């Protein structure tokens, strides 16, 4: 990937900021998401809650299904590839996907290596639970980061934990003296240049979204107040009673995340949220995949 292509790919993530990226499984859902104000959609055969329920090996989606969603909407379309499965990524690039999510929601294809994302022209977003993971993914060519959270649970606790940890670690790097950065790079297991960037700029070199467990407008606003630049909502929308209304409310909650009066209105009469599972009840921690 040329330097220029990487800049263009980081720039697309900048254009998604302040927005909501919604998981959809059909062209009809994609249209509902677009009409509700999604800034992009994630096309996949099963949303994380159903992947969790079904068990078994979960793979990238049928390209034909993804293309039917590309044809249905004008906003960017993303799709997931398994961690380390660079051929699934090649297939997604061949159908001109706008963003690839190298995702722990699917079964990992490689237990050591992530995809060498620098070999692709299309952009990648990757999950991270802490600053080290985020910078390792960026070093591999990711042009956008999201918290891992815990997908398909409707439980926000892990996304909160990951965002807080990342922010705390960024704060720690910023407070270090220049000559302490070498050691920090060693501890985080990342290149010195990326540590230097975070130290100098007080932020990641790419856009950082929240993902994994967002089910309500309040969840979305919580993540924004904690410093997320936008949110992914997976199972939270189409597993709820009134997807249209909930989707539109989450979009507005991300725009006006600092206005409790507006948030109160947006949280009213939404119908039942997705049922959700608490973290103690989970059998499989997807966030532990690919570190």
């Amino acid at each position, binding site marked *: 990937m040329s330097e220029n292509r990487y800049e263009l790919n980081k*720039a697309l993530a900048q*254009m998604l900021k302040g927005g909501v990226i919604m998981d959809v499984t059909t062209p009809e859902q994609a249209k509902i998401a677009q009409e509700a104000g999604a800034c*992009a959609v994630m096309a996949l055969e099963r949303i994380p809650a159903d992947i969790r329920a079904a068990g078994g090996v979960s793979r990238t989606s049928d390209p034909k299904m993804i293309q039917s969603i590309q044809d249905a909407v004008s906003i*960017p379309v993303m799709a997931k590839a398994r961690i380390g499965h660079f051929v699934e990524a090649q297939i997604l690039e061949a159908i001109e996907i706008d963003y690839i999510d190298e995702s722990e929601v699917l079964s990992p294809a490689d237990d050591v290596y992530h995809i060498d994302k620098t070999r692709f022209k*299309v952009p990648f977003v990757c999950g991270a639970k802490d600053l080290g993971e985020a910078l390792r993914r960026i070093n591999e060519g990711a042009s956008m980061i999201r918290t891992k959270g815990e997908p398909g649970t409707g439980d926000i606790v892990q996304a909160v934990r990951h965002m807080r940890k990342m922010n705390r670690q960024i704060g720690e790097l910023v407070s270090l003296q220049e000559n302490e950065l070498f050691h920090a790079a060693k501890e985080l297991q990342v290149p010195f240049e990326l540590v230097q960037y975070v130290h100098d700029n007080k932020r990641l070199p790419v856009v950082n979204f929240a993902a994994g467990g967002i089910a309500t407008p309040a969840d979305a606003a919580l993540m924004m107040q904690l410093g997320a630049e936008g949110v992914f909502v997976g199972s939270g929308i189409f597993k709820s009673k009134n997807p249209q209304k909930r989707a539109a409310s989450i979009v507005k909650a991300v725009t*006006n995340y600092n206005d409790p009066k507006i948030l109160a209105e947006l949280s009213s009469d939404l119908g039942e949220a997705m049922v959700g599972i608490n973290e103690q009840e989970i059998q499989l921690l997807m966030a532990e995949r690919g570190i």
Partner: protein
Amino acid sequence: MKIGILALQGAFWEHAGKLKELGVESFEIRKKTDLQQSYDGLILPGGESTVMGKLLKELDLFQPLYEKIKDGLPVLATCSGLILLASELSNDSNSYFATMPIKVRRNAYGRQLGSFSVSADVKNIGKVPLVFIRAPYIESVENSVEVLATVNDRIVAARYQNQLGLAFHPEITQDSSIHRYFISICKNPVPII
């Protein structure tokens, strides 16, 4: 001098950074009460036009901003902002403010693989880096519109009265000359008869 930046979704923060660098005060527009102050210009940033178009209406921002623009408030519109200003979209039945008599094609260069950057001359400004992200272009303009730049024979920048419409993203490059030009329009807007 104070400039309002539509901050419903997209790259509004980058515009605020440019204005700060040039010593100009700005504020974010997210809800109706944000408009209870005087301002000399408006920026419509890049992002998704479908999101901004919808939120403008649902947050009751559309009508007050529309009237301001029609009455001559200087506007800098980049990428999706250009779509909001266009009087007609060639591949979409929606239109938004429709205050600029131009026809715009959405996602005109295709998906993200079609995104690109070049350096080109912009009239009244000079050579600047132009970054196109899933960008639109202007298919045609009425005579009253001044074409400011073309890339591969496609119009990518135009001015109509005090409205500056760009298909590209000056807010994410190192160059600040486009913002400087916009600020000069805000200082001396053309009177609307």
